[in-house]
């Protein structure tokens, strides 16, 4: 198996504050990695460095053997790294269908017709085909997030980053989004998921990474991670969230 993402000795600073310290991790093709950790531990910052929405200062981040850095190759790398945002960030002035079809036309050079046919198929997959002609503001949060997932898949990226995809949702809508993500994972899509959904991590992850204070504290398969955490800080975290 080949590594889609490799991160070596990466540091990130906001001014004096070190947000990420000596991050080392790899993600293999087809792997589902869930990143857990308390708020402010740098989880979101870490995945936002992978497509350079945040700049990192030291070390290397590589996607499919290409270093992620500013320059002419960045757009090409970003095509391979999809991202699903906490606040969906759908394009509000475009219909659901146009949201999904836009980037394939503009970036992949696909014909408008082909892109729309593909967009409809993807909307079907996330259960949103009936809403193709609506605008984002007419949809619930869960529906918007499912459209956002379809929009991301439309670019056929090598890996999809999920930045707390259910954190902005009403509780009753979390399930529909997690279901879509789970079926993506089953179909072999490589995913890195920052989330607070322990159930999802347990059920779907191939590997769980625990972060605190900008460091990776521990990583393991979900079985061992949840039942036999090694580090005291991981134990404390799991204690706090699982027995409240």
């Amino acid at each position, binding site marked *: 198996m080949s590594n889609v993402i490799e991160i070596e000795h990466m540091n990130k600073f906001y001014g004096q504050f070190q947000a990420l310290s000596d991050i080392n991790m790899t993600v293999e093709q087809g792997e589902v990695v869930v990143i857990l950790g308390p708020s402010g531990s740098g989880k979101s910052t870490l995945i936002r460095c992978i497509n350079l929405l945040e700049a990192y200062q030291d070390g290397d981040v590589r996607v499919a053997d290409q270093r992620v850095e500013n320059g002419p190759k960045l757009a090409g790398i970003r095509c391979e790294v999809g991202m699903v945002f906490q606040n969906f*960030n759908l394009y509000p002035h475009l219909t659901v269908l146009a949201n999904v079809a836009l*980037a394939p036309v503009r970036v992949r050079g696909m014909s408008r017709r082909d892109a729309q046919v593909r967009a409809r198929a993807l909307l079907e997959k996330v259960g949103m085909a009936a809403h193709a002609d609506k605008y984002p*503001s007419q949809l619930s949060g869960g529906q918007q997030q499912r459209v956002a997932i379809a929009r991301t898949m439309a670019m056929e990226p090598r890996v999809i980053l999920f930045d707390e995809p259910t954190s902005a949702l009403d509780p009753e809508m979390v399930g529909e989004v997690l279901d879509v993500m789970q079926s993506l994972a089953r179909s072999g899509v490589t995913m890195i998921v920052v989330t607070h959904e322990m159930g999802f991590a347990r059920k779907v992850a191939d590997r769980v990474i625990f972060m605190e204070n900008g460091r990776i504290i521990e990583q393991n398969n979900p079985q061992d991670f949840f039942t036999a955490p090694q580090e005291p800080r991981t134990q404390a975290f799991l204690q706090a969230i699982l027995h409240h």
Partner: protein
Amino acid sequence: MELLDTFFNWDVFVDAFPLMLRGLGVTVLLGVVSIILGLVGGLLLAMLRLYGYAPIRWFSRAYIDVMRSIPLLVLLVLIYYALPFVGIRLSSFAAAAAALSLVSCAYSAEIFRSGIEAIPRGQFEASASQGMSFFNTMRDVILPQAMRIVMPPMTSNCINVMKDTALASVVAMPDLLKQATQAQALSANPTPLVGAAVMYLLLLLPMVQLVSWVERRNAAGGKRA
């Protein structure tokens, strides 16, 4: 009766009307040309001001501040009466169009900038994360949303440009006001001036009402795309 004869003299008006109509044509042409140049230049300037390299950003900002500070009439007089001393001799139309669009593009640049800055960062990030180029991001994602926001202030700005075309009569441009003052001098009667005022109103009132309509619709429509 004397009042009617003085200010609303039909015979004088009919005599002056053809010239004033031609003047109105010149006014509209000057306004439209200046508005278009001002919008195009303003968008360009806003882009440089927001996304250019530091020196370009600084220069755009300085340009915008200067153009928003200088009185339009002063700039117009400078262009028309001072530039010939360095060999640049513009027709009165070109001088007026230059002055109007140089100033209006500074105002529209600031309006565009505020509109673009009102777009949430998530929109830029979503577009970037899909590998969209700067140009595509602007054209397909940011500007369509920004345009909706800047519609009311931008229309107001266009109305101002149209109104300010009257200043061009100072540099002997045969616009509506100039034609009216000439007709007034010729007939020794102020009716053409009143006529000109009415024609300005007929031209601009619908535009003003358009602005309030757009503003009302935006306020009511809210989120609906």
